[in-house]
């Protein structure tokens, strides 16, 4: 057995474990997805923070939509934090707030999203603080549903189901499938307190807990995941309101998508580095999230290296082959294919079936599902190739020290 085969088998073992783990959780929780963690209680006062930087195109629409959200106005304050925008975001929000007293607008020097959220937390007067993106659209009951999941004092945060607002391009349709799958995968992990991110489009926190853990990390590129890891490390719980839906915009063009995912990926690596000394400590970060993340990074690096090596070897071989064929005036046989099944065929077929089954189970909940082509291309193309590019691009960014956190 060659070493490449051994590494690929080990990587497949990890993938298999992850898939099986999710499927088991799904079977155990499938009957109470909407009600798990739900507790009827008196509605608390809530401060909703909207950090905004150059959001003049969408901020008005977001604020208008907030008017349709079902939450008593006397219990809600909205804090728009303009992060030193260079456009007229501040003016638009300010004008709008004049007609709606529960909306307050602040302006500060540009210092990043996490810093804006922290600024908002300190300004917020209520015990619960929500954080939402300036281009997120909440469904009318999103806030009401969220608050029901603060079912005990140790619940520090409640996340929501993030869905894709615009589904015009194939990339947006793929992300629509991806986020629907992620939402369910996140909800089923709630039973083990393994929700590892409180997404930016809308998450609600207990202010006291945020202050205790030191609020958002202003140096991290993925502040919404970092805060979740920190809350878990401090022994808090994170719940998910699967019935609280939030729509947001995701990149429709590949380059914008690559840029966003690279930022997320590097942010994720930052988090892993930051929490390295928590390994095997008695909290979800130490016992599960960090070990799995480290194994994922290791296999990602090795498998990406193997794929690139195999691809380059094949490419150079083909270049030599075609060049010499042309010199000798021989028709090159490029598309030679001789199928020989082996152990990898078994795992390939099995994982494809599991992937398709799990996707269909999730997508069945939605009225309008994807077309066959969209689903198949999502499973067999989107899930591999673009993420390989993200990994390579992230590595390039890190090696060329294009992110200041590396040099500090």
């Amino acid at each position, binding site marked *: 057995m060659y070493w490449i085969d051994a590494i690929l088998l080990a990587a497949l*073992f990890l993938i298999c*474990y992850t898939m099986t*783990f999710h499927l*088991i959780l799904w079977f155990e929780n499938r009957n109470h997805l909407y009600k798990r963690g739900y507790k009827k209680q008196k509605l608390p006062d809530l401060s909703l923070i909207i950090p905004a930087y150059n959001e003049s195109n969408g901020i008005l629409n977001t604020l208008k939509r907030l008017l349709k959200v079902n939450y008593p106005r006397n219990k809600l304050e909205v804090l728009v934090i303009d992060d030193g925008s260079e456009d007229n975001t501040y003016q638009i929000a300010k004008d709008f707030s004049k007609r709606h007293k529960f909306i307050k607008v602040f302006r500060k020097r540009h210092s990043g999203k996490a810093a804006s959220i922290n600024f908002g937390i300190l300004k917020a007067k209520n015990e619960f603080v929500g954080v939402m993106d300036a281009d997120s659209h909440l469904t009318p009951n999103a806030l009401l549903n969220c608050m029901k999941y603060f079912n005990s004092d140790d619940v520090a945060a409640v996340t929501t189901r993030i869905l894709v607002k615009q589904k015009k391009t194939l990339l947006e349709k793929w992300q629509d499938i991806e986020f629907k799958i992620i939402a369910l995968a996140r909800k089923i992990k709630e039973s083990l307190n393994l929700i590892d991110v409180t997404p930016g489009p809308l998450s609600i926190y207990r202010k006291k807990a945020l202050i205790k853990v030191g609020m958002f990390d202003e140096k991290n590129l993925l502040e919404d995941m970092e805060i979740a890891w920190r809350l878990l490390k401090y022994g808090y719980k994170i719940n998910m309101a699967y019935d609280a839906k939030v729509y947001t915009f995701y990149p429709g063009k590949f380059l914008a998508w690559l840029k966003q995912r690279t930022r997320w990926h590097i942010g994720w690596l930052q988090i892993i580095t930051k929490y390295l000394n928590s390994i095997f400590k008695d909290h979800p970060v130490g016992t599960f999230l960090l070990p799995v993340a480290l194994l994922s990074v290791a296999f990602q690096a090795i498998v990406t290296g193997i794929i690139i090596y195999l691809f380059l070897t094949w490419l150079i*071989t083909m*270049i030599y082959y075609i060049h*010499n064929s042309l010199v000798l005036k021989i028709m090159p*046989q490029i598309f030679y294919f001789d199928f020989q099944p082996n*152990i990898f065929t078994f795992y390939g077929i099995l994982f494809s079936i599991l992937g398709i089954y799990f996707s269909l189970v999730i997508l069945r909940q939605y009225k309008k599902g994807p077309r066959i082509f969209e689903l198949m291309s999502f499973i067999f193309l989107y899930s591999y190739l673009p993420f390989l590019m993200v990994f390579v691009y992230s590595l390039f960014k890190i090696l060329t020290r294009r992110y200041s956190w590396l040099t500090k």
Partner: protein
Amino acid sequence: MKMGPYIKAGLITLFIFVSGIMFGIFIDNFRLSEIRERISRVEVSSLDAMLMSLYFQKFGKGACDIALDTNLRFNQRIYSEGSRIEEAIKVNMFTPELEQEWRRYILLQVQFWFNSVELKKNCNFNYSNVVHLFKLKIEDPQEKALNKLQSQIMLNLKQKCGNKIMLIPITTDSNLSIVDAVVKQHNITKLPAIIIDEEKVFQGLTSLERLNEVTNC
């Protein structure tokens, strides 16, 4: 923290993995037995051809054509069978015995080559013995490309020349002393290499035109 799902997932994964390995072993063994069967058939044909040549050498040249026909039929199968075994060696993970089968196959080729030389001499045939020497396991992309192209050229040559040549592919990385001796005797330092009628040696990529010129095609 609950441990239930972690252990359950671990056990199921282990089961799936063991099933996968069992499947892999089953498929590899299936392929191995198929290859063994093919080689056995080739072995029988080879022995048949060899004994036929021997028979006519001992008891008269009157029926040399029958011996030639037997050898040609055997030769037709060589390339297709060889490439099938090559592919199997590349994908099989659990059956190192396959390499042994490959070596057996190479010995049959060498045996056939010697037989063909004898037949040509004793019956005064004018076909050319074309021995194609190459490596099976190559990492270097340039070598891999040359190997692939040379194999294609050899197939084209066989298609073009038909019965006028006996095409004998032999891998040099099979750890066989007879093959090492052939390589040493002909001073071959660069692969792929072609030996034509035990005299002319071409090292590196050799074009179809060049091979056409030197064979009796």
